[in-house]
Each structure stands twice: as C-alpha cells, then as structure tokens.
C-alpha cells in the first residue's frame, strides 16, 4: 500500500511538470488553433537563461521573475518575427515552422551550453516530509504548488481582466474583434508571450529533477501533448487535470501492469489516453466542437 501511495504521490509531482507545459500548449492552441512543437524547447532555453543568471550570482527568486519576463519577451518576438508573416498560411505550414523552431532552439542551446547535463538549483530543499509513511519531497510539493499558482494566475488573467477578455476575443472571433478596434495581431503576440512564460515555469520546475541539458524537455513534451489533449485541448483546467492524470497513470502502469516494464510506460500511458479519446473525443473538459458545413 505504501508503495502504491508513493507511486501516486510521485506521479502527481511529475504530473505537475506535464501540466505546466500542457498549459502552455493549450494557450497557444487557443490563440492560433495549432500545436506549438517548439514549446518544450523554448521552455528549455528559458531555463538555461535562468541558469546563466543564477550562475552570475542572482538568487533564484530574482532570476525566476526575470526569466519569466525574458521568456515573455522572447515569445512575443518569435510571434512577430516568425509567425505573423505566415498567419494566413495553411495550418500545416505553421506546424512545420514550429518544428523548425524546435530544431533551431535545440541546436542553439547545444551550441551555447553544450550537452553535458548540469544541475539546476531548485529553491526547494530536496528533503522529504513523512506523511504517514509516504515520503513527499518538498521539491515535489513545490512543483505542485507552483503549477497550481500559475494556473490560477492564468485563469484570473483570462477570465477576470479586460486584457484577458480581449485576448480570448481576438483568438476566437478575430474578425469581430477587429471591427471593435482590437489589435488582433498584437493579442496573438501577447498569447505567445504568455505561453512562453508559462512554459518557462515548467522548465524551471522540471530542471532540478530532470537535469538541465538541451534534450531535457523532449520526453516531457510528449506527455504534455497527451495531457493537453486528454484534458480537452482548449481547456486550461483540463491541461492541469490531464497532466496529473497522465503522471499518475504512467507511474502506476509501469509498476503494476504485468509484462509492462519501465520501457513500455510511455506506450501504456498513451494507449490509455487514446482509449479515453475514443470514448470522449473532445477530452475531459473540452466542449464539443461545432462542425461548420
């Protein structure tokens, strides 16, 4: 039983990392209707930036918001430079661009910082607290807490502020918004900046556990993609719930399903998600899409 609880708890913690990246994916999907394959790599780059800042003597709690701002700026720049010129292009072309971006960012990070894994200082101590025989590390709790806070902040921003309202309007009804004087293009840039910042949080939370190196997020993005789809690709809440479910399921499947060794964990996780999708095609929290004839 203790082992089971241990697996669940560590699954929730890993799920928190998936959730924060999934959230970034959902934000971009909401803004543009496409999956940004470069999200993980952008998060990794932001984490390296944070690493460099901390190495120069900045404390984590200062480097963290600074990195968020830089990541936000980076996201905006990417949207302006790379995405906006091809806004009208077919979706697949945009998807390929994000793939190109992913390759580019990965190579850039490898070039600047090399491929040897580095340790990234977490603000939370690595010790654990004993909760009735189950050990939960402060780090894992920190990841869960931060993911939750970020979701809350994004929710408040999108649902309770004018900026958020404008963002949502620009994403879902661009023509009407233009008529109302909204700078739709800049709203999309804002969306990218926001997603990039959220992704940076994911990277900084993941790095202490995964070890910082250019390929760090590649395993994560698959799970994040799955989590976002499971939760309903348009729902931020769905992304977080999806992430937690994916984290726990994958852990438990690896441990308890007979014949499934550690190597098929990913397979099982994805199979379960697909099974859910066959039953509930729009994900757990997604709304049924209206098919336009």
């Amino acid at each position, binding site marked *: 039983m203790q082992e089971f609880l241990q697996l669940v708890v560590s699954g929730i913690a890993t799920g928190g990392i998936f959730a924060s990246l999934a959230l970034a994916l959902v934000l971009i999907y909401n803004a543009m209707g496409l999956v940004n394959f470069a999200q993980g790599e952008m998060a990794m780059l932001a984490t390296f930036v944070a690493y460099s800042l901390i190495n120069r003597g900045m404390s984590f709690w200062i480097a963290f918001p600074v990195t968020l701002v830089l990541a936000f700026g980076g996201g905006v720049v990417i949207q302006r430079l790379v995405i906006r010129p091809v806004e009208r292009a077919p979706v697949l072309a945009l998807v390929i661009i994000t793939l190109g971006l992913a390759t580019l960012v990965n190579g850039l990070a490898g*070039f600047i910082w090399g491929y040897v894994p580095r340790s990234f200082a977490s603000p939370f101590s690595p010790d654990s607290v004993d909760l009735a025989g189950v050990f939960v590390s402060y780090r894992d709790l920190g990841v869960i807490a931060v993911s939750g806070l970020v979701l809350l902040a994004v929710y408040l921003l999108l649902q309770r502020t004018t900026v958020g309202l404008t963002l949502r309007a620009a994403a879902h009804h661009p023509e009407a918004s233009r008529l109302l004087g909204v700078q739709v293009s800049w709203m999309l840039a804002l969306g990218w900046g926001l997603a990039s910042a959220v992704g940076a949080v994911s990277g900084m939370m993941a790095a202490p556990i995964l070890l910082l190196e250019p390929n760090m997020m590649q395993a994560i993005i698959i799970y994040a993609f799955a989590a976002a789809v499971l939760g309903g690709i348009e729902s931020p809440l769905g992304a977080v719930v999806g992430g937690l479910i994916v984290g726990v399921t994958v852990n438990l499947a690896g441990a308890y399903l007979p014949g499934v060794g550690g190597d098929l964990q990913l397979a099982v996780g994805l199979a379960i998600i697909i099974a859910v999708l*066959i039953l509930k095609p729009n994900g757990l929290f997604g709304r049924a899409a209206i*098919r336009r004839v």
Partner: protein
Amino acid sequence: MSRIRTAPPRYWLVLLVVIFFLGFPTVISSFLASEWAQAIILAIAIMGLNILVGYSGQLSLGHGAFMALGAYTSAILVHHYKMDYLVTIPIAAVLTGLVGFLFGVPALRLSPLYLALATFALAVVSPSLIKRPAGLTGGVQGILVLQPDPPDVAREAFAFVTGTAMTSDQWIYYITLFCALVLFWLAWNLARHRPGRAMRAIRDGEVAAAASGINVAGFKTLAFGISAFYAGTAGSLLALSTGFISPDTFPVSLSIQLLVGAVVGGLASIPGPLLGAIFAYFLPIESNQWVPSQTWLPEQITSTVKNAGPAVSYGIILILIMMFAPNGIVGLIRTGYVTVNRRLRGASDPQTGQIPPDTQTV
C-alpha cells in the same frame, strides 16, 4: 504521333527526370548512388504520407512506424525464413498496407488533432514495441540484412555502359528506382481518377462530399491503407539499402522528417514528395559537412556552424522555406510559373471570373 505533339510539356519533363535518374549511377560514385537510393526511398514514404495528408486531409505523425513494420517484415522473412529479398518487398508492402487500413478504421472517429496525437503515440512507442519480441526482431541487437549482389544480367548491362563492375549499392539503387517509378505512376493515376477526386472532395469538405454520395469512411480508410502500403515498401527498401535495422532506426524524428518533407515538397502534388525527400535527406548532411569544407568562408562562421551542428542551420532554412513557400516548393514553382506566364502573355485583368483549371493534377 499527334498525341506526342500535343502532350503537355510536363510529360517531357517527367521523361527527362526519369532518364536522368536511370543514367545517374553511371556517372556518380557507388557511394553517392547509395545516398540517392536513400533519398528515393524517403520519396516513396513521403508520397505515401502525401496521399494521406495532401489528398485525403488526414494527418499522420507516425509513418515512421509503418516504415518500421515494412522493414522488419522483410528483414525477418529474409533472416529467419531465408526468402529472397525481392520477394519480400511486395509482401512487406501488402502487410503494412493491411495494417494501415485497419488502423484507418478507428482513426475515422478521431478529429485531426487527435489523429495526430494517436499517430504520434504510435511513432513514439514503436521502438519499444519492436524491442519486445526479441527472438523475432533481434531486440536491441537489430537484424543484419545481407545486401544481394547484382544478378548477371544487370552486371553485364552496367559493364557494357560504363565499363566498371556494378556494385551492390548500385543494384539496390535500381531496385529502389524501379519501385519508385511504379509507385509514383500509381499515385499519379490515383490522383487523376476517381479515388483521387473523391479524396480531395473529402479533404475540402467532408459533409459536402458525403452529401454527393461519396463513401467517406471507405475512401478515408483506403487512403490510410494505401499510404501505409507506400511506407511499408519504403521501409523494406530501407532495410535493404542500409543493411542493418534496429529499433532505433525508426525514431520519432523519422516520422517528423517525413511530414516535413511532404510539406516542404508540396502537398497534393506528384513531384512534391521527390523534391521534399531530396530536401529532407540532403540538407542535414550538406549543412553539416559542406559549409565547414568551404575554405573561402572565414573561420568563425565555419566553426560556429560545425559546433552548432546541422540543427541550427536546418531549423533556420526550414523556417525560411515555410515563410516564403507555405505551399511547398511545388507551390512556389506553380505560383512563380503562373506569374511569369501572366506577365509573358500581358494579361491585364487576372480576375476574369473563370474557374481556374484544376492545378492538382499533373
């Protein structure tokens, strides 16, 4: 005779390209022939993907897995059952096609994004799945495929033309070229005739297509099956041309490379996959090696490119191509051709209200 005179210029171009590829190995080294064989194999796989994505509008990020199926089928048949390699190619293709067809059935339920996820999942887990039945697949050790020597007929013909002995690599090049010619011809016919039109109708508007009486489900699963058939052929040829396959010959990045090739070449076109394959295959190699070997470039630039690996240059070029040619190279050529044509004809009013001829057929 008049048919030849009035044949569209495109047909002459195709003939020229075919002759070019037929004669190619006689003037290049055996090693380059093996490289081009790889590119042609990629073109076959991309053509399959193109049928699915470009013509029927379904997205797949997992065609590398179908290639793996084709490759392992051939390799296992040769290795364990001692079959002749050439016989295994169609077997692998048909088997993979069937699996693709079956895969297409549940795929009908999934909307494009979720289909992308499902096929992506397939690509991600296929290396692990291959490792499992280690007795059959060789597990992590992989399977070595012996490359056949050219048969005497081919050897003599080649020696007659070039005066040198034909190598295994060159013979394999011709096998892949033959398969590619057959499959491209097949795809061209598919696109021109009813199945192609039906698929395009489905791609452009499923409900309208259904309303016109097209069997949407049937054609969509057919598209999946056909595209898997192509991928299986490509996989089988890949095993032959590299001589060794293992689970890590088919990572996720292969499926992504196929999609990139399809889009960069130009979706819903016949020459697109070939151009896309040449791009996808040669660009990483060239950017890694060609730049550092150019002595006229300053040291800083070459060492930067070398250390950054092909990734950075590949990424930049990919982005640039998509920005300037969102419909792929073929799309760019078409728009360029149309623009040039218009200028030459002195057309003053492009908006004539006429429906343009269907540019989707070659």
